[in-house]
């Protein structure tokens, strides 16, 4: 059970922000996201010459008076998006205090921004090798807050298998919104397959990596039996007996940096967004600075 800051004050600070999704998405009718397709909104987009079959009500008569040619006035379209959250609820997310809450906080913040834009949201919880969808499709703040309240009570256990679980989610639409994967990605499972699947479904993908400072830079040297939180027994090959020396810690830092670079490179090559956050960083700073820099919110 994790305690996350889902207070009113937390959400009220997000009121000034909005979620910025790709304009190439199609989404559903009736949202607030401007897309590249021309539609029926009042937002002017362009002119074009009249062709037979066009609605003559859109002819700009002022231009006709000036050029004696028929031009149509075009407007952008606004759509509703589906924002999916794939939340890593494996045991690894609950090893360090605050890590799970941080992950939930990010999910809630992004969810709130989506709901505020009248988007549909859904929370998919991945644990014990399965994916749970306890809340279904959420629209509107009431249902959102109800779900957020329930999220506080979820448990983190077992392991998350993104590659198997993400494609199995039935409500994943095509080209209709943002998929956010929140995890520490400290797993040997091929989570990249899940990303590829979502991109195949033409969804905008955001990977939020939540890491505890101890994971970024373990500070202690000495002899350790390292037990993987997701292992079921001591003899699990994921467990290690290590004599950690100072040089090894340096090598850990170097290897960690390479690992992050590999994830970044993977996401960049696929067109997905990636943000690695340290739980030591205040969540507001992550949202207002880091996500802002990602052009995901504004």
């Amino acid at each position, binding site marked *: 059970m994790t305690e996350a800051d889902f207070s009113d004050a937390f959400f009220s600070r997000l009121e000034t922000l909005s979620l910025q999704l790709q304009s190439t998405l199609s989404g559903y009718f009736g949202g607030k996201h401007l897309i590249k397709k021309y539609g029926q909104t009042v937002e002017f987009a362009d002119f074009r010459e009249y062709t037979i079959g066009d609605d003559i009500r859109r002819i700009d008569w002022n231009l006709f008076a000036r050029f004696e040619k028929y031009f149509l006035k075009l407007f952008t379209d606004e759509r509703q998006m589906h924002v999916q959250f794939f939340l890593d609820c494996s045991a690894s997310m609950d*090893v*360090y205090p605050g890590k799970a809450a941080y992950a939930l906080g990010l999910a809630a913040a992004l969810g709130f921004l989506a709901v505020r834009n009248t988007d549909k949201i859904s929370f998919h919880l991945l644990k014990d090798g399965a994916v749970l969808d306890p809340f279904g499709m959420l629209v509107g703040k009431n249902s959102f807050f109800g779900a957020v309240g329930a999220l506080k009570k979820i448990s983190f256990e077992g392991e998350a298998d993104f590659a198997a679980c993400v494609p199995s989610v039935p409500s994943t639409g095509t080209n209709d919104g943002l998929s956010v994967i929140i995890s520490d990605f400290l797993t040997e499972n091929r989570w990249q397959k899940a990303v590829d699947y979502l991109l195949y479904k033409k969804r905008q993908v955001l990977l939020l990596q939540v890491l505890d400072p101890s994971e970024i830079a373990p500070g202690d040297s000495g*002899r*350790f039996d390292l037990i993987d939180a997701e292992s079921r027994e001591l003899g699990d090959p994921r467990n290690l007996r290590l004599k950690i020396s100072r040089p090894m810690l340096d090598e*850990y830092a170097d*290897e*960690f940096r390479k690992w992050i670079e590999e994830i970044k490179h993977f996401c960049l090559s696929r067109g997905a967004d990636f943000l690695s956050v340290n739980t030591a960083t205040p969540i507001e700073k992550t949202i207002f600075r880091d996500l802002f820099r990602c052009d995901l919110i504004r």
Partner: protein
Amino acid sequence: MILRWLLPLGFLGMLGVIVLLALYLLKPQYKTQTVSGTLIWKRVLLRKKRQRPVLSHILVFLLQALLLIAVSLALAQPYLFSKGVLLEDSEYVIILDASASMRTRAAGEEGAVGDTRFDKALKKAEEEIDRLFAKGDGAVSLILADSAPHYLVNGAGRDRRSEIDSALRSAICSSGTADLEEALEMARGQLDANPYIKIFLYTDTKFGDMGSALTVVDLADESTEWNVAVLGCDVAVRDNEYEFGIRLGAYGNVAIARTMRMQIRGADNGDGPSNYELKIPVSFEVDPDSPVREALTTVKVRATDPKYGGEEGRFFDTFEEVRIEIPDLYDSIPDDDVYFVYGGVKDKIAVEYCSAEPNTFWQFGFSTLTKNLGGKRKISFREIYRDAGETAERTGYDFYLFEHAIPPEIVEAGLPQDGVLMIADPNYTAAQANLGFRVAETVTLPALTGCTASASHPLLRYNDPSAIGLTQYKRLEMTDPLFLPVLYCNGDPVIYVKDTGDVKIVVLAFSLNMSDFYQREFMIFLYNMLETFMPVTLDRYDYTVGERAQVNCKGVSMDITGRGTVTLTDFPAQYLFTEAGTYTFTTHFGSKKDDEVRKAYAHIVSDESAIFGESDFRIVLDNRELTGDAGRSLLFWFAVAAVLLLVLEWYIQFKDIV
């Protein structure tokens, strides 16, 4: 069989087992820590595994290899010797004194008996070599110290024992001297290379202390050995009478009074040869308290002294042989009990002179030469008086001297074949005699003109060509290419020489009357001619063993008979006397002349007759001193190294397992 431990202290190494046990029991404590994932750690380990294998494996391999080497070396029981310990008693240099005195045996009642000192030296050397090789590997060098010391074997090990034995068996004691100083210098060379060798000198010469490396084995035995020797004989003619100064020596514990016998054979005063025998009493008494143990005396004997059996008033001017001995001596060295004197027969040179216009220069020249040669040669000069009806002989002379004209009987009968033909100032008769040249013209010079020599020729060895002046000479036309011009005047050859061994012709193409040759250079020229064509066979007739004589030959070849026969054809030659005794030098003239026989006697060196000698030189041959800490067992240290390597290897393996 009893099992014993050479180094029980080594059992302390078993404490290492306790240490090893402790290392295994005292396992390090590991803290359990739950982490969100070990992905990064696994990547770190993978990276380390990729980086480390080469170094780690090489290190482990090296340690394991070193461990095996250390164990192997420990099993081989290493022992560190200092160089001295290693080389001490490992190399012997054995010097065998091969001087004539080493032939000394014990004096018996009827002669020398038992082994010679040299035989004893060989046996003792063999025993010493046996002792060396019984200890293990070693090396032996054998130096035979005669007049020219040399190695019989050098640095021969046990594997070359047969070679050493063969060298010992074939070693021969000489009749000459031994250059022990040179032999010891050779040993010093070995000592420089290995300062721990032992040098054994088997000799009969007494040496003082000459260093720690040298062991002198004195083989002289004064209780059984003594020697009396005829050391030499000086021959002189006093008052037309031969006087023999006989030097005698006695050595060792001896006191004798004997009669020395002197036999003179072939004594001739012109009436024919006859023999004499003289008996001279001699006595010796060596002072046993004297450190020298030597008694020397010289007995002067006149050949005609009646008190020794000589015939007073019966002088002789030549003798064939004088034998000097002390009979029934039975001492330790019989070789020096007899002495022979030769040289009592003088070389005779017969010269025939025939001239169309005789002069006295030639006879005067040869007679002066006879006087100046100190009586070594006896020159008979016969002038042919043609006015008295005498005719020239073509045989029986050593020199045939024809001046101006070749005698017609010679032209008719042929040139002499058994001597040197000398033609002075030839005329037309030369062509008639088929000498190989003819007179082309007579050249008269405006003034006395000096001569030049093209190359040095023995005939002009001591002459100054420029001091030979001519006013007239004959230009010769040579048809025989074997004539060699040796002196030139006015650009023309004036003296020719033809020497083919069988035929020896000298041509003077000028008359003594038309030159100043006779004033000074003529005598030298005659001397050169005698030395070139009629050299004396030997300078003297007594030699010591080991001495070289210069041998000349008037004829074609020479046989030298001593302990064998040697034939010489190239002269002058050097002949080495290797044994004591009489040597016969027989000169062969081919079929033209009878052989000429000369004898010489080689006796052992007087110092070798002195059988109890002392060295007159000193060489210091010291070994390098050995230090007290000469050797140390390394078994313990190799075992320690093995244990340390084992622990280190275990540690690294353990670290890798982690």
